[in-house]
């Protein structure tokens, strides 16, 4: 095997991460550099799109093009980027709050359009950047600054949601298993369609003890070891229901015959319609009344 054209360090920018020492996002960033290096696209052909949150800072730490947008809108913005230039490798990254609370309305639609995007959610069950409020994946009963007497709500289930939305690739990872996580990120990027990885990335400052890397190491069960067949969607739905109880890692579902991407259908349409184009100075003739 040849040395990769771009090494992990080639994707690393000069900006120093301002995460808390020990934050899980450091590991995710490392895994991402490595996955990108395996894939080998030059940084200027890669675009990282994120919202707002600790995890959403990722684009600034890469040498790729980055767009650190506003809270919850990374997916719509990424779809615009991809449709404007389908040649780009577009990776969307953000937090559980960014993605499933304020951004939750965009997710099903991004999924059903099936563009070739990779969506990495750093799920830490808390709002990190704003200092420790409830997030949509926070467990019922959790006491935080916004739930001093305990949360009264069921958490959402990102894995089950994504499967119900019809995502072609749904996986879960933790930086507690760096090689496993790196491989899953790479596989997600290579999947030709919308791919989702839920990364359990601990918040060391506001997270609970049982959400830290140490606990992940003890708790993690790989889906492969359970004999799960990732082409079985119903089995995936069933397993996904254990989110919050079990920490399954690996691929829940991978569509064995990925349908055409949205951008490929757009390309077809553009090609088909191109012959009907008018020269710029005749566009208005279409409105002439004979």
């Amino acid at each position: 095997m040849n040395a990769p054209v771009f090494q992990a360090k080639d994707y690393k920018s000069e900006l120093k991460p301002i995460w808390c020492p020990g934050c899980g996002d450091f590991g995710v960033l490392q895994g991402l550099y490595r996955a990108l290096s395996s894939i080998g696209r030059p940084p200027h052909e890669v675009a990282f799109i994120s919202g707002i949150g600790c995890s959403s800072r990722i684009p600034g730490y890469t040498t790729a093009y980055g767009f650190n947008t506003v809270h919850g809108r990374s997916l719509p913005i990424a779809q615009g980027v991809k449709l404007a230039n389908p040649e780009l490798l577009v990776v969307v990254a953000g937090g559980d709050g960014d993605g499933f609370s304020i951004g939750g309305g965009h997710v099903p639609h991004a999924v059903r359009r099936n563009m070739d995007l990779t969506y990495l959610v750093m799920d830490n069950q808390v709002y990190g950047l704003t200092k420790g409020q409830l997030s949509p994946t926070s467990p019922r009963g959790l006491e935080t600054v916004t739930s001093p007497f305990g949360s009264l709500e069921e958490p959402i289930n990102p894995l089950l949601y994504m499967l119900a939305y019809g995502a072609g690739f749904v996986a879960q990872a933790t930086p507690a298993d760096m090689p496993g996580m790196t491989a899953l990120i790479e596989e997600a990027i290579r999947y030709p369609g919308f791919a989702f990885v839920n990364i359990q990335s601990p918040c060391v400052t506001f997270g609970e003890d049982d959400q830290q890397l140490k606990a992940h190491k003890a708790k993690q069960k790989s889906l492969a070891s359970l004999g799960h067949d990732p082409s079985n969607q119903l089995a995936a739905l069933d397993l996904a229901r254990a989110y919050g109880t079990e920490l399954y890692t690996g691929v829940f579902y991978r569509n064995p015959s990925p349908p055409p991407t949205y951008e490929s259908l757009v390309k077809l349409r553009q090609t088909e319609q191109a012959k009907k184009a008018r020269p710029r100075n005749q566009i208005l003739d279409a409105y002439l009344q004979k």
Partner: protein
Amino acid sequence: MLDDLILGMAGAGGDGVVSAGESLLSAASSEGYHALMTKSFGSQIRGGESSCRVRLSTKKVLNPGGALDVMVALNWDDFFKFGAELPLSVDTVLIYEEKAGPPPETLKARGVVPTEVVPVAIAELTKKSAGTDKAKTSVVLGLLSGWFGIPSEAIGRGLKKKFGSKGEGLLEANEKALASGIEYARAHPLRTPHVISKPKGPPGSKMLCDGNDMCAAGALFAGVKFFGGYPITPSTEVMQTLTREIWKYGGTVLQCEDEISGIGATVGASFAGRKSMTATSGPGMDLKTEILGLATIAELPLVILNVQRGGPSTGLPTKPEQGDLYQAAFSGHGDVLRPVLAPTDVEDTFKTTVDAFNIAEQYQTPVIILSDQEIAQRKEAVDLIDTSRMEIIERRAPTEAELAEKPYARFALTESGISPISHPGMRGGTYLAAGIEHNEKGDPTSGGTMHAKMNEKRFRKLEPLKQRTDLFELSGNPKAPLALLAWGSTAGVAREAFQLATAQGHDVKLLVPYLLYPIAEQVYAGFFESVKHGLLVELSHQGQLYRMLRMFIDVPKGLKSFCRSGANPFQPAELVARLVELKGLPS
């Protein structure tokens, strides 16, 4: 012979008055008339009352006009439902379906009763001539052709286009109905003839389109490659047109899940280097506010069309109002300067859209086009627009040489305030775009000094816009003491008022701004120099442009805001009356 004819029609949903109006419009325009049509419906999605107004002219039509020259009522109930939208005068020729009975007392209660009131047994004529009552509108068209001189050949051609493919029988029936209408009119001449003169333009020289059409066409002309949007009345047609056309030019339309996503995808496409646009109306504008601010600080070109309707909230979704100017200029938190342009009619919506793209790309900024329900949805027959001298501006990208020379600083503090902009895919141009304040390179900062510099840059780069006198229309004696100002669809009324007042011998001038914000201080100051009295006419409760002028300019004391809530269109004569009234006041 008349140069100008205003017709109205009203009926039940099934009566097809709107379709009759459309046939009239297309016949007239194919003959080379200028024409303008507005329609109005009850609140039902289907089957309620409907009406239309058609104004035909041998000259450019400036607005839908006031009192009708001709009114066709297929029944009285539906006619009355449209109230002030179908105003009669003593001179109106009022034609009605005989079956509906004579004009009820309510007509008198409305104040004016036309002297010429003509019952026609329309249904009966249809049945007799066509053998079916489905061809009623063709009888009406025949009557109008016969009485008012609208060329029947063009109407006939229209019938062929419309019914040609629907089986011989239907076409024939309609042709017979048309003929019978014409014949009836010939046999029963009006007391006062109202025949319209021959048009000046040659047949086939007119475009038939509405403001939303012209916005879509302008966007295509300017090179739009991405449109992201969400349906909302009265702007949806822009998306609908583009989604038929844009693919031909290598672009894409994405119908998004909401307006936030619509502008989000649009900003994304702009970040990726493409000319991008979204369109919406008031409620959708509200939702786009946050990402508009993102585009401002990330300095991304973007065009946003807002077709104004009555507000606040859902308000009056099918009626025009000019109440969204504050929003266009001032919505969003923080210090923002965002150009706002407003077309004034169907035709100039094309150029205004091209201007908007040019400004957006040149200055790397979102630009808002403020249209409104009236000009967006009224259909007009206008002269083909000459595009040969319209320039297209592309954003300034860093050259390879520049990128090779020194590290790329996306937000470099240049003299003009404009910094060359790269996009994903461009080697050497990688940077971080963000909503957070940044230094020249694009790295986040929380420093007050850099923030002040960047704010200053973002404002400074737009200063040259204020010198764009081409974005203002000035008519009349530059030294006139009397002034009229109006923007958007109201400008068409002001233009006619200006002509009227001038004809009456008043020394008056007219200013119509296409650039609403930033306020071009010098242009207005120059205009106001000679002004003792004047009116700024706006269709909104507050008169928002008037207030905005005051923010930046010392407006002459004698210049008054003349404004009222939407869905209450102005008439040229009332503007002239107000002007004359003002003239008498001390300045």
